[in-house]
């Protein structure tokens, strides 16, 4: 019998527990409900305040086709696509409606090498890597020597692009020939194919490798530079997108470079910012192209080194001489 008592005790204990737990539960539910209601009210109030604070505030954006649009600041959302993907798309599409053209006036080049330095700084290159270089030229001993800046010719029939096995280097609808170092496998077929020696290989660790490590790859700037891939002149495509002249063009102190749009029949001098008709400039100065007989259709024109108002000065030995 003695065994029954603890049994009955055991039965009444859970019953008591049940009672208290139900009461507790109802009380807790009430508290929770009140808490939630207060929280929601506070959130709503905060949201309304935020909304009223930004209401009517407009933000101005520049669209891809260069239109300025106004958007309510509440409607502004971050783009779903990651930055790397957008940069890749931009880089491949280019700027529709344009055809960039480059004119280099050899009669004005004095080997200041500001273009070379500006380019190396912009693209994070070492001093021995060139997207553009100024060369000392002399056809034969009876003709005068002159300096010739030589960037990539951005051919309309690019042999380098034809040989790329992985579609890493490509021709863009608006003119420039770019390189995607995320795709490049470093086979160097393009270096062999280019008749203008316009391409460089990142043989060793790039200059700013550590600094640029976490940067999103910008195909139009080719930064970060990557070991084992090709680097080349990009016509400063990132600057063109902003409506600015290329790095080299705007840094020249001697007015050597003209850059513009073939469709507008206009080129602008990087130094004087003088804007002239392209067709007139080419025909009046007997412009020529480099090795057009190869059928590469270069996008760069040269004006002959005539009537130079200063003597030829060979470059210093301290400076790198030729590519």
């Amino acid at each position, binding site marked *: 019998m003695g065994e029954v008592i603890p049994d009955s005790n055991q039965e009444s204990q859970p019953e008591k527990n049940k009672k208290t737990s139900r009461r507790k539960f109802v009380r807790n539910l009430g508290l929770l409900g009140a808490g939630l209601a207060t929280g929601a009210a506070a959130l709503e109030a905060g949201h309304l305040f935020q909304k009223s604070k930004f209401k009517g505030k407009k933000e101005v954006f520049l669209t891809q086709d260069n239109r300025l649009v106004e958007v309510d600041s509440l409607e502004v959302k971050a783009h779903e696509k990651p930055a790397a993907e957008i940069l890749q798309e931009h880089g491949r599409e280019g700027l529709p409606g344009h055809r960039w053209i480059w004119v280099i006036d050899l009669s004005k080049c004095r080997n200041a090498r500001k273009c070379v330095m500006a380019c190396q700084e912009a693209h994070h290159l070492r001093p021995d890597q060139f997207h553009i270089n100024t060369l000392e030229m002399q056809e034969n001993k009876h003709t005068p020597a002159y300096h010739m800046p030589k960037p990539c010719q951005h051919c309309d029939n690019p042999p380098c692009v034809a040989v790329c096995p992985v579609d890493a280097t490509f021709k*863009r609808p608006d003119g420039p020939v770019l390189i995607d170092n995320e795709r490049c496998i470093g086979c160097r077929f393009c270096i062999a194919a280019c008749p203008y020696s316009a391409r460089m290989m990142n043989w060793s660790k790039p200059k700013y490798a550590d600094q640029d490590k976490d940067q999103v790859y910008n195909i139009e700037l080719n930064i970060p530079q990557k070991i084992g891939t090709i680097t080349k002149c990009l016509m400063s495509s990132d600057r063109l997108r902003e409506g600015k002249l290329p790095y080299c063009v705007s840094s020249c102190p001697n007015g050597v470079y003209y850059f513009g749009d073939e469709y507008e029949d206009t080129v602008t001098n990087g130094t004087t910012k003088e*804007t002239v008709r392209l067709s007139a400039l080419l025909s009046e100065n007997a412009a020529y192209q480099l090795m057009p007989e190869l059928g590469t259709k270069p996008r760069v024109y040269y004006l002959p080194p005539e009537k130079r108002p200063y003597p030829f000065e060979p470059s210093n030995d301290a400076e790198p001489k030729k590519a």
Partner: protein
Amino acid sequence: MTYTYMKFKTTCIFFLIWMIIPRGVCQVLGADWPVPEPAKSIVCAASFSKETVSAGDALYQKNCKACHGDPGKQNWAKIVPVPGDPASAEFQKQTDGEIFFRITTGKVPMPSFQPILPEQDRWNIISYIRSFNPQYIQPTPQQKVAGGGRTIRLLLACDYNQKRLYVVCNEITKDKTIVPVENADIQLLAKRYFGNLQIGHSVHTNKIGLAVFDFPQNLPGDKFGMINLIARLNDETGILGEATTTLNARIGVPTQWVSLTAPRAMWNTRDKSPLWLTFTFSLCFIIVWGFIIYILVSLGKMKRINAKVKIQIEDE
């Protein structure tokens, strides 16, 4: 005799001095580059400060240093005429108005900075140049500020029948009357991606303040032939001040953009490869794989025949 000798000696000395002085200096600061009287007395409306000097420094490094070198170091470019050192006493003798006029107009080989630098930037450069002259005291701007507070208004209109563009230049006086401005130099420009292209030469307004331009020849416009035009008052002397107006007119050649990657070519992407290449590759692909499949099928056949023959031999 001694008199003649002395006269000869004096002439010789003067000749030698004339030979020694760099010709360029004479040319730059001499009578070769005259500045109109009204332009000489133009002064900057704002006072020069540390900010204007540092802004001018940056502009000087970008626009002037290549030829003029660093002020005070006499390391100008070796060209003729000699660019001269802006910190030199000879240079600093010029009034602000003279320097402003020379920067604005330019003279070959010095470019005109009017289309390159806005008015305030040119004044900033002058403030930087003046910072090398401890004796310099900036003249107080009285009524001699560029434009002198005058309001000039330009109107641009297009006549498609006559194929002409008209620019009317008026001055709105303080008592709100409109007076035509005669003999104002008007430039017509077309807006381009990197800068403005001047159309033809600048034209002076006539008695009724009208300047007439012909349509530009074969100038490409957008796909409808539209061109953004800008008429600008080219006021080198700074008497009238600055004024511009714009117009979007259909006076260009309609230009249709064609992508450079549109044609089929060896260098283009796979979907735009030459047809002969696609055809040849497909044919080779079919032949090679066809041959391999043919061999495999034949081998299978042989195996089956072999099995049959084996059974026949065993039966016998």
